């Protein structure tokens, strides 16, 4: 008898359950964790040159994590019961302790952000006029002490909250990898590397989005309305960091796939599917080729790595690549059958696509409003002096 002469006559279909909503949720938390870690380079790790992006990074981290959990709630079959996650605790469930991480981390980050902006709020409440003056007045929450002692205390607390924030950010994203890693049923997910892979791709995409947001907001929203030479140098520097994140991410991916390919039957099948099968375009083409390899070349090659246009192109590519990675792993991992002889189908719910689109709109709006009205890049010169500069430029 030929050993592959087995025909399935009757079985029940088991479609993929955790779909795009979950993949995109992982994408958001990754962006959040990545931008938080980058912002902490200045405040926590004391690398002075990264100080100018500290506020932008945390603001992004908070704004992204405000929207991210909505994906999870909208994906529930019983969304009205989501709040029970807070008082029905199962310490063995990654989702259960993730709930608390997802609650603590944005609160910590928001306080941390407020402390960094308190000085600007206080100054702005006095010097500005109109809506922003009222807003800043409110946002000082009555804490208008700008004495040296008060500022030193702020500094201390910024450092403390940042120091708590970094492990929290890593945990928030590490746990999303762990959600997959501790499912022994799914060969593609069940590896100790998964949280690390998720963290590194979070760093890659977080850097990518930070670069894009910095470029757009500095050019069009910041008081200077320009990418000054210092800002340009810093963005080139961050692009260099992104290259190293890509190197680590790519290395982890190679290690993961080698051990997967030479692992269990299901793991080998997953490897075949991703490397040679129908998923190879999404995996090798989009995730690895467009998402890692091309940005790596752009940020490495001396002719492209200095150009802001190329850097922003590379950043867009990393975002596309990491979205592809999340989808490949979340959906692809469940397509490998557990009891069938064909891939499990994935039926996309139109409702879910609609939610994803809505949340993207909400996210962009939040980011725009926050960067527009909060003193992310300081208060700038007064409007008069700005006018003067403009006239000088025109005169030249």
């Amino acid at each position, binding site marked *: 008898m030929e050993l592959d002469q087995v025909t399935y006559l009757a*079985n029940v279909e088991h479609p993929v*359950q*955790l779909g795009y909503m979950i993949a995109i949720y992982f994408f958001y938390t990754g962006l959040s964790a990545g931008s938080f870690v980058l912002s902490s380079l200045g405040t926590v790790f004391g690398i002075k040159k990264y100080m100018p992006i500290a506020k932008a990074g945390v603001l992004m981290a908070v704004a992204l994590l405000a929207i991210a959990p909505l994906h999870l709630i909208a994906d529930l*079959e019983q969304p009205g019961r989501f709040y029970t996650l807070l008082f*029905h605790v199962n310490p063995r*469930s990654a989702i259960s302790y993730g709930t608390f991480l997802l609650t603590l981390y944005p609160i910590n980050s928001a306080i941390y952000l407020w402390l960094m902006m308190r000085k600007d709020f206080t100054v702005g409440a006095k010097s500005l006029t109109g809506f922003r003056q009222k807003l800043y007045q409110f946002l000082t929450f009555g804490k208008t002490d700008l004495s040296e002692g008060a500022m030193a205390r702020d500094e201390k607390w910024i450092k403390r909250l940042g120091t708590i924030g970094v492990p929290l950010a890593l945990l928030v994203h590490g746990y999303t990898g762990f959600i997959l890693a501790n499912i022994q049923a799914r060969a593609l997910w069940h590896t100790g590397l998964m949280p690390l892979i998720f963290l590194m791709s979070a760093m890659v995409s977080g850097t990518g989005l930070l670069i894009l947001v910095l470029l757009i907001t500095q050019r069009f929203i910041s008081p200077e309305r320009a990418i000054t030479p210092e800002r340009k140098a810093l963005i080139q520097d961050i692009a260099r960091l992104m290259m190293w994140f890509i190197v680590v991410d790519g290395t982890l991916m190679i290690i993961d796939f080698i051990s997967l390919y030479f692992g269990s039957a299901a793991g080998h099948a997953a490897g075949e*599917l991703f490397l040679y099968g129908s998923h190879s375009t999404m995996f090798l083409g989009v995730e690895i080729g467009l998402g890692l390899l091309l940005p790596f070349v752009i940020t490495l090659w001396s002719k492209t790595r200095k150009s802001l246009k190329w850097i922003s192109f590379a950043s867009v590519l990393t975002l596309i690549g990491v979205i592809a990675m999340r989808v490949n792993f979340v959906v692809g991992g469940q397509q490998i*059958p557990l009891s069938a002889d064909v*891939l499990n189908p994935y039926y996309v719910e139109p409702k879910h696509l609609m939610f994803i689109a809505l949340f993207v709109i909400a996210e962009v709006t939040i980011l725009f409003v926050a960067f527009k009205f909060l003193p992310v890049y300081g208060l700038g010169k007064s409007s008069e002096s700005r006018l003067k500069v403009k006239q000088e430029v025109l005169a030249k």
Partner: protein
Amino acid sequence: MAEKKKRYGMVIDLRKCVGCNACTVSCKIENQVPNGVYRTWVKEIEKGTYPEVTRHRLPRLCNHCDNAPCQAACPVEATYRAEDGSILIDYDRCIGCKYCMAACPFDARFINPIRKTAEKCTFCYHRVEEGLLPACVSTCVGGARVFGDINDPQSLVSKLIGNNPVQVLKPEMNTKPMVFYIGADQDIMGARYNNLEKGEK
């Protein structure tokens, strides 16, 4: 000697299974399982080519594992173990996150499209409580399905497990299933990966 706790389990003697799907149907009726989803079903394969050919069937249901990954995965502890050892779901507590469905290595769970919660075989807890057998067991024409207390050495399930070579699904997953098979073929017990994309080529 102190009496051991009840631990319900099932033995499915495949030598007696004719693949009639009476269990599938009776389960559907008994538990009002909606269209398109199944608490129990019968997998069927054909192995070999004529004249060296056999058909194999494998009735499938929740394994009520001793070390249940679904129970560990549930973030709100809606999945719990009853006093008789069976794994049940509190439908009023389930939030429908579907993490248990990802965690079950046996595809035993599904979303009830009407109730909007996770669902699976309960070993007919409501019948067993009343002293009846699970619907699939009482309806099985060949007597292939045997249900009873595994901790009771006098029960038929205990005797069958003790006196026959038995198999469980995916022992390497370390979930310790409580559904045992007699005469199961390895080609039907898990997934087959040799040609996963046949439909797409």
